[in-house]
Structure formats: structure tokens, C-alpha cells
């Protein structure tokens, strides 16, 4: 495909869309589908047909809008008017939408479901990566092209050398969104400079952290953006093969990506001689099979090669020796989602968001004890208070905020006294947590901290791959001590032993899973030590969660 054709296709789609007086955008990502979005879409289509409005009204299934607990969501987009979003739409309400907007009938039950325009959930967000999510049809490439899709790839291929692309990434200050925050430009340059005949690009979509679903949403809602980002990366580092590793629990994401790859190949936007250049790039999907450790980059590569997903020591880093011994670029799916923004809007624009050291915006999955749960994208440097109380709408029942857990099993808890610190990579690390992939779980006073630590340790114990001793045995022992604390049989010596173990596992484990798995214990001990002591000394659980069924061995003997 040539530049001209690309522009024409985009224009055609825009013309087609503008023919409709109104477009009904029905969110069809996993959370909304589970609340019945497909039935709503069907009902909308039927109602449009029954009224004979097919020529004027188009019903489109789109990606995620964000407030997932309020689904199914339907956006009514009328020409020359601002969008109206309805929450909790049922098939019955779907026909009311047609009645109200096209027949002028009053529908009080529908009014109630309209989301107010100035709702802080949307007002406080900055959508860079999710800009088109909820706007484009993830199963139609034309819909993406109409929003200037693939122009960033075109720009990179035509106007920039691979060096310049890497330099632009460096200038943008983009950092890896998988959690560690490694500068993307530096990584790309390393792979570009690494000697090797074949090189690979891998998108890490093995999003295992419980409570995190940013990558799934992005793959489901805007798969073309991920593909385009990967293609640009392929051009920048000199790779001609890419893999997307999709978590096994995400069948819908895999289906949509597969469809997207096929459509892009047919249009000559992936495959050989992309956009009439000398650049060839293929993308294949690899499905995970349920192993948390495969989110670790070396384990993930083992899994792509069809082996047990066990990490291998670094160095050599994947940038030098990765898949089949060739230099391999591994980035998180969300990182690839940022690429088109950096290229098409420029590094300076991108760098205008965020803090001095952490640029851009980050997607968080807001969940737990908070009124508005869902997916949000906020500029890095926003405070936790803004997220929890403005975007999240506070805690149900007006209960007090106790802590926010970020970074999943590798992260930690941030207590109430730090509600006003800016959220960026460095600050979170100083507080004993990590940015992580973006799960943010809010807890109120009904959550017991030693129990939360136990929950995460059980997770790590189950998911430890078993290759290195400290992680395999350490997680079991740490879990045992936490179990003792929560059932009342622990003594203060156990607490010291727990801390010792944490240090040992952290310092001596092979990969990130083991090195970070004590973090939930560290951070809860740091901020909620009194709770641990209440459990051990007084057999009291301040949150009222733990049942003390056992007694310490020593006392029982005495």
C-alpha cells in the first residue's frame, strides 16, 4: 500500500461515518460483555431496524471506556452535539435510547442512567494511549485508519532513520510500563546496536498481576495501536519478526489481535514491503498457558520457544542474546501502545506530561473498595488522593481509606499518610512499593494487613517456578509464618525470622519474582507493624478478619 492509498482509505471511512446522523457506540470489552453488553448491542440493532433508521444510525461495538463496574456502557454520538454516555444499559433500556433520541419521547428511566458530562472520573484523566479506546471498532482496521492509524509508521518509514526513531524515544522520556521503568530509548538502542543477523521484537502481554488488566484492555480495545507500535519498534531495531505473548486467560484479546493481524497483512501494513518500503515485519501470537512467572522476560522467551517457563540468569540480557540466541527487544504491551503517540505527536509533546524523571501518562486498573472502579489513564505525578477520591469517587459507605496496594505481588501498600505524594517510579520505590504494571487496589479499614501479605505470599508460593532454592523454599516458609500470625500461633521470634527470610529471599533469588515477593511483607511491616503485633501479642485482628483458632506452641506446653 502506498501513502496515497492509506490516506484515501482513511478519508473514505471518515466520509462513511459522517453520513450517519448518529452513531451508537456500545462497549464490548470483557467486563461489559460479562454484564450483558452483547445482548444490549443486539437490542440496539434490532430497535434501529424496527424503526427503519439503518441509513441514519450506526451501531458499533467498540473497546473499553473505563468505568467497568457501570457497564454495559452505550455512547450516543450525534453530529454537532457532545456525546452522551449511558451506564448500566439493559436490552429494555436500549430501545428507550432509540425512543428518546429519534422519536423525541421522554424516557425518565434512561435519564437516570446518563453519566453527567463533568463527571470527575473522565475529567481528571489524560488519555494518550487509550485515546481511541471506546472510539474505534477493534475488529475493523478502517475504523482505526480513520483516526489517522498507521500514519506514525508511515512517518517513521519515510522520514526517519532507525537511529532517529530510537533517539526520539530517548527524548520522549518514555519508560517501560511493565513495572521496572527502564528507559525505552536506551533499550531500543541496545538492541539496534547488538550484532546479529536476525532480531526479534516481543510484546509482553502476560499480565499476571492480580487486579491488573491494562494490557488486556489495550489489546482488546485498540489492537492496531499495539501492532503499529511493534512495527515501528521492528523498524528501529532492525527486526523482521515480532511475537505477542498473550496470557492464556485472555481469549478475546487473542481473537481480536489475530483478526487485526490478518486485516493489517491484507492491507500491506504488516508482512513484506510494508507501505512500499524495504521494511518487512511479521507478527505472530503466542498464547500463554497459565504461569505467572512467564511475565518475567527470560521466562517468557523460554515459553515462546515451547519450553518450561523458567527464568535464566541475566546477563546476557535479551537485548544481546534472546530468542534463539538472537538480540530480542521485549517491551510491555502498554509501552508499545505509547509509541505511536510519541512518533506522531513528537517527543516534546509526550514529554510535556508527567514529572521530571517519569514522562507521559500511565494506565491504572482501579479496583477494590472504591466507588468507581475501572480503567484510568492519568499523567504520571498525579496524587493518590486525586485517584481515590476524585476519579474513584471515594470509598463506599464513607469508610476510612487504609491503604492502596500497587504493583501486585511485587509491590507494596501505601498508607493514608502518603495520599498526597505524587505517583511516579521513584516516589513509589521510596515508599517501599513499585509502580508495577498498574494494578491499584484500594483497601478500607476492613482489610487486615497481615492477611493481605499472606494472600500475596500464597500467590508467590503457588507461582514460584521452582528453579532456584531461595524462592521455592523461602516463599513456603514465609507463608507458613504469616499463616501462624493470622491464626494466632506465632510468637515475636517468628516476626524476626520472617524479616530475616525476607532479606534472604530478596537478595538471593534468581529472577524478579523472588527478588520482589517479600515487598508486600516489607511494606505492611513498615507501616502496619502494630497490626502484626496486635495479632501476635494480643490475639486481636483490628480489621476483624482473622480467626484465632490456634495457640502458640510455647504457651500450650507451659
Amino acid at each position, binding site marked *: 500500500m502506498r501513502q496515497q492509498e492509506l490516506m484515501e482509505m482513511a478519508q473514505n471511512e471518515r466520509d462513511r461515518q459522517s453520513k450517519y446522523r448518529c452513531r451508537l457506540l456500545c462497549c464490548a470489552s470483557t467486563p461489559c460483555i460479562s454484564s450483558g453488553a452483547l445482548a444490549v448491542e443486539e437490542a440496539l440493532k434490532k430497535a434501529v431496524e424496527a424503526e427503519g433508521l439503518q441509513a441514519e444510525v450506526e451501531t458499533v461495538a467498540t473497546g473499553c471506556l473505563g468505568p467497568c463496574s457501570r457497564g454495559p456502557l452505550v455512547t450516543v454520538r450525534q453530529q454537532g452535539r457532545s456525546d452522551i454516555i449511558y451506564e448500566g444499559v439493559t436490552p429494555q433500556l436500549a430501545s428507550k435510547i432509540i425512543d428518546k433520541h429519534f422519536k423525541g419521547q421522554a424516557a425518565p428511566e434512561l435519564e437516570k442512567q446518563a453519566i453527567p458530562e463533568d463527571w470527575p472520573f473522565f475529567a481528571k484523566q489524560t488519555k494518550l494511549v487509550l485515546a481511541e479506546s471506546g472510539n474505534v471498532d477493534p475488529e475493523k482496521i478502517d475504523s482505526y485508519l480513520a483516526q489517522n492509524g498507521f500514519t506514525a509508521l508511515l512517518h517513521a518509514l519515510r522520514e526517519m532513520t532507525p537511529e532517529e526513531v530510537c533517539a526520539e524515544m530517548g527524548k520522549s522520556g518514555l519508560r517501560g510500563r511493565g513495572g521496572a521503568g527502564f528507559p525505552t530509548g536506551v533499550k531500543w538502542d541496545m538492541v539496534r546496536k547488538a550484532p546479529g543477523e536476525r532480531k526479534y521484537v516481543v510484546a509482553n502481554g502476560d499480565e499476571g498481576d492480580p487486579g491488573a488488566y491494562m494490557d488486556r484492555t489495550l489489546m482488546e480495545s485498540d489492537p492496531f495501536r499495539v501492532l503499529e507500535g511493534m512495527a515501528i519498534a521492528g523498524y528501529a531495531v532492525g527486526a523482521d519478526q515480532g511475537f505477542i505473548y498473550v496470557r492464556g486467560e485472555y481469549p478475546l484479546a487473542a481473537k481480536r489481535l489475530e483478526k487485526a493481524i490478518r486485516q493489517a497483512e491484507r492491507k500491506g501494513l504488516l508482512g513484506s514491503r510494508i507501505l512500499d518500503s524495504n521494511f518487512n515485519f511479521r507478527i505472530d501470537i503466542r*498464547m500463554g498457558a497459565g504461569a505467572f512467572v512467564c511475565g518475567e522476560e527470560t521466562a517468557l522467551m523460554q515459553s515462546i520457544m515451547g519450553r518450561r517457563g523458567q527464568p535464566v540468569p541475566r546477563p546476557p540480557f535479551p537485548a544481546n542474546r534472546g530468542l534463539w540466541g538472537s538480540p530480542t527487544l521485549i517491551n510491555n504491551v502498554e509501552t508499545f501502545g505509547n509509541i505511536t503517540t510519541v512518533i506522531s505527536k513528537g517527543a516534546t509533546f509526550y514529554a510535556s506530561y508527567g514529572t521530571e524523571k517519569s514522562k507521559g501518562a500511565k494506565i491504572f486498573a482501579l479496583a477494590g473498595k472504591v466507588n468507581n472502579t475501572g480503567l484510568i489513564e492519568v499523567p504520571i505525578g498525579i496524587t493518590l488522593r486525586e485517584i481515590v477520591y476524585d476519579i474513584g469517587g471515594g470509598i463506599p459507605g464513607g469508610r476510612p481509606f487504609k491503604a492502596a496496594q500497587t504493583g501486585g505481588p511485587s509491590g507494596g501498600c501505601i498508607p493514608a499518610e502518603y495520599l498526597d505524594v505524587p505517583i511516579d517510579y521513584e516516589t513509589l520505590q521510596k515508599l517501599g512499593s513499585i509502580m508495577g504494571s498498574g494494578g491499584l487496589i484500594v483497601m478500607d479499614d476492613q482489610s487486615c494487613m497481615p492477611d493481605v501479605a499472606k494472600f500475596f505470599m500464597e500467590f508467590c508460593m503457588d507461582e514460584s517456578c521452582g528453579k532456584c532454592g531461595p524462592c521455592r523454599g523461602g516463599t513456603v516458609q514465609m507463608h507458613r509464618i504469616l499463616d501462624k500470625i493470622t491464626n494466632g500461633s506465632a510468637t515475636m521470634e517468628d516476626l524476626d525470622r520472617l524479616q530475616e527470610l525476607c532479606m534472604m529471599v530478596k537478595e538471593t533469588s534468581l529472577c524478579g519474582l523472588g527478588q520482589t515477593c517479600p515487598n508486600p511483607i516489607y511494606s505492611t511491616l513498615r507501616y502496619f507493624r502494630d497490626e502484626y503485633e496486635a495479632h501476635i501479642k494480643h490475639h486481636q485482628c483490628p480489621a476483624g478478619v482473622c480467626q484465632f483458632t490456634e495457640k502458640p506452641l510455647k504457651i500450650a506446653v507451659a
Partner: protein
Amino acid sequence: MSEAGQGKKDAGNGGEDPRYKGIDRVLKRLQFKQDGLIEVLTAAQEAFGYLPEEVMIYVARQLKLPFSWVYGVATFYHFFSLKPQGKHNAIVCLGTACYVGRANDIVDAISKEYSVEPGHTTPDGELTLTTTRCLGCCGLAPVVVFENQVLGKETPEGTVGKIRTVLAGGSLGTVAAGQVEEASAT
């Protein structure tokens, strides 16, 4: 062991057991590359519902891999099961948000009602109770997947009730529709 493998190999080629055809198709598509082991096993599990030993032997022979290698991969990933699964599968999400929403109580309720431990199947082969780590529907926590439908905002009694309906021969469709209305009313 080798006899069983040999027998099934013939079955695969001779087409005695049609389920081997699905595996053969994937093997050919991947050109018998050893890197494709996980995909082949996924296809095998889809065809058989689990991974019987003779199927793993068959896959090992076809890919020219040692059986221990195939067994190692099959036991490493949670997705693969070496035991037959129940007719119905209830998957309870134990991700952080569901955990905070007391998903543990749901597991306990099902496990008590049907005397089945998580990860196991009832003796009559009707119900398998599985737990999983985050399905990414945290806005609907706690989440249960039953009959391939994601059910949100579950309660211990509600979930057990739905399982009882389905096991008694009812369908989830009517229950699920009620569930949606209930959720939107809150």
C-alpha cells in the same frame, strides 16, 4: 508405554480416533517444529479435555522430543490438566479485588456444598471447582466463571444456587439474565 504410544500413533494416522486429527492438523501447521510444543498441547487438551499419558507420548514422538520434556512442560503450566475434568467447571477468581470482595467465602461455600476441594472434581464427574488468579474483571468483583460465562458481583449463596440449577439440568441463561438486571439495579 511404548506400545500404547505406538497404538495411538496408528490411530492418529489411521483416523481411528478422530480426536487425534485436531492434533495432527496443528502439528502440520507448525511443521513439526519443537518450539510449537505448547500450542500442540493446547490443541490436544482442547480435543481430549485433558492430557492423557498416551496423548503426551504421541506428541513427544511426533515432535521427536523426550517424553520427560513434554511431561515437564505439561505439568509446569496451570492450563494443562493430567486428570479428566468435570462436565461443568466453576472457576472462582481469587485476584486481589475479588479477594478483597471475599471470594474465599464463595470457594468455601461451593466446596462445602459439593464436598470438593479446589482443583478437584466431584466423584460423579459433574463439577470441577477451580480457582484462578485474576480474570481482569475487577470492576465486577467477586467474579465466577461458570459454563463459560463470566458472572460478576457474586455471593456465596447466589453462586451455589446457580450451580445447583445447572447441575439439575437447568440453564444458566435465565439465571444470568436475572443477574444482569440485579447488577444494574444496584
